[in-house]
């Protein structure tokens, strides 16, 4: 009995660590949809690019932490450029067109990654001082796992705080709430969508880089977290940040605990849960009618 409880505990902890990364990618996905109605299928590719930019910056000689700080800057730049060059052209099109175009964009980015960095898996060592093991209830966990999860939760809290308490966040909420009214009182919607798309890409890249020592880096790494982020976002309600937070916890723990007991069937269970929630509430659990 004690052994079984311990097994459950380990899986829940690992699930929540994954969930903290999932939260970072989901927040960006949700913001971009809530503001611009862009269903960004390329979000997972930004996550993967984050891992690869980290590796390249470290190869040049930078330490892990410096490289980790460079990644979101580079990815924000890439996101801003792609929004200005591509996503912007889809503003007047139906939502599904953004899904299709970003699906193509995702294939381009992953193809580009394979061309530039190859298709093999790269293992990134945890930074100095975080290589050790920590014991929790006589289970061994790598220290880095907790440090990284803590940092990504801090980042997520930062994003929520920015949306809630800063002038930028005020404009974001205004556009999400009533775009026409917000524009009428002088919010530059186009510019805001551009910025938020860039920041979301930076956030996804940061998550990919921060997770590199835990999950390793390979070209397809963004695809599975993308699908999970979609589940999180539709479960919580597209555009609802509170929904994304709860959704990330539900999805990651279901995956981890289900995976421990049901093996390959667990993902099927997760998809069934999400499909049933969507059918019962097509806007997701927390979305108010207006935002999603």
């Amino acid at each position, binding site marked *: 009995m004690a052994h079984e409880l311990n097994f459950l505990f380990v899986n829940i902890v690992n699930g929540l660590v994954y969930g903290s990364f999932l939260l970072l990618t989901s927040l960006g996905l949700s913001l971009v949809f809530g503001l611009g109605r862009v269903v960004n299928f390329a979000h997972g590719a930004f996550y993967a690019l984050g891992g690869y930019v980290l590796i390249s910056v470290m190869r040049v000689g930078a330490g892990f932490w410096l490289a980790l700080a460079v990644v979101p800057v580079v990815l924000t730049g890439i996101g801003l450029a792609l929004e200005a060059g591509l996503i912007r052209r889809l503003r007047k099109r139906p939502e599904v067109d953004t899904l*299709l175009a970003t699906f193509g964009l995702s294939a381009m980015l992953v*193809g*580009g990654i394979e061309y530039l960095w190859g298709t093999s898996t790269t293992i990134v060592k945890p930074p100095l001082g975080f290589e050790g093991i920590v014991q929790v209830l006589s289970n061994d966990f790598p220290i880095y796992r907790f440090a990284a999860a803590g940092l990504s939760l801090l980042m997520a809290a930062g994003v929520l705080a920015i949306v809630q308490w800063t002038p930028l966040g005020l404009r974001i909420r205004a556009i999400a709430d009533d775009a026409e009214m917000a524009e009428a009182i002088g919010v530059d919607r186009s510019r805001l969508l551009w910025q938020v798309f860039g920041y979301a890409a930076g956030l996804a890249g940061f998550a990919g880089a921060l997770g590199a020592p835990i999950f390793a880096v390979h070209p397809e790494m963004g695809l599975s977290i993308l699908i999970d982020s979609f589940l999180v976002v*539709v479960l919580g309600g597209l555009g609802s940040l509170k929904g994304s937070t709860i959704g990330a916890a539900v999805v990651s723990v279901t995956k981890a605990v289900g995976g421990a007991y049901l093996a*390959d069937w667990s*993902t*099927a269970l997760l998809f069934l849960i999400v499909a049933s929630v*969507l059918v019962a509430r*097509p806007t997701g659990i927390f979305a108010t009618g207006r935002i999603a």
Partner: protein
Amino acid sequence: MTLTSSTIGTAASGRTSALVTIGVGALALAAILAAPWLAKPFTITLLTEAFVLAIWAMSLNLLSGHAGLLSFGHAAGFGLGGYAAGYFAREVSADVILSLLFAEAVVFIVAALAGAVAIRLSGVAFSIVSLCIAQVLYQVAIAWRAVTEGMDGLLGVPLPRLFGATIKNGAPFYILVSVVMMATLAGLALVLKSPFGATLRAIRTNDIRAASIGIDVRLHKWLAFVISWMLAGLAGGLMVFLKAGTTPMSLHWSESGNVLIMTIFGGLGTIVGPVLGAVCFVFLHDVLTSTLAIWQFVFGLIFVVVVIAFPSGLAGLPAQFGKLRWRFSR
């Protein structure tokens, strides 16, 4: 004024375009059936695959182009049909008609249930739920080892038999696939010209107004969903005979992406577009993967350019350029 002249224009060009369609159709038919005597065996293999994929792309076009439900999980019906036909052919009988009938029965049952759930949604929510449904089937194909043999896949499917005779790979199977593909094309063209097709387009254009003039929107969406899955299952069943087996990858969402690009590249909402798209896809894929290491990049680039610049695809190009010329000549 504009309205009258354009109406006359359509009426006059209607007869010409019908003649052109018949002429081009007859030529294409002759070329397709004569191909085994004209082309290299490898080209025939590629064409066989292209025509199987064309059936699949046409099935997606019915659901997404005409009924307006953009499926992001159209590998579901295809992969399911493949597994069912392959399992039946291996364990019971390799008769192609019986195997395909069994596959259609299985696909019908799953599609009837999945469709009843999915058609309650529209727009992006439908896309994501259809992706979810396909991923559930993908996971089941991996997990249900007793039937599907897990990640290894269902291998060793025998050559198909028709009326007791074995259909060899190459020309004989190509002819079978061509006939099925052209029958599907003709059948879908008739269906889409029928009131049923008009009803689907009415729903796609505006489902609330369609409902208000008395159309049972859910019933028609469900019918489109089930027919679409069953055609996809037919394609999957033929593919399992062509490849002598199938793996869970046939249900993976990247396959759903492949069929989407074929359909969109050919022309979503047209009639022959998906066939053109599938043929282009197979031959482009063959040329590019053997000469370029960056097939995926090119694939993505084509996708982006088509969605942004040519939303009606290859089959819509003449109309798109026609509109441009008309605009310039004014």
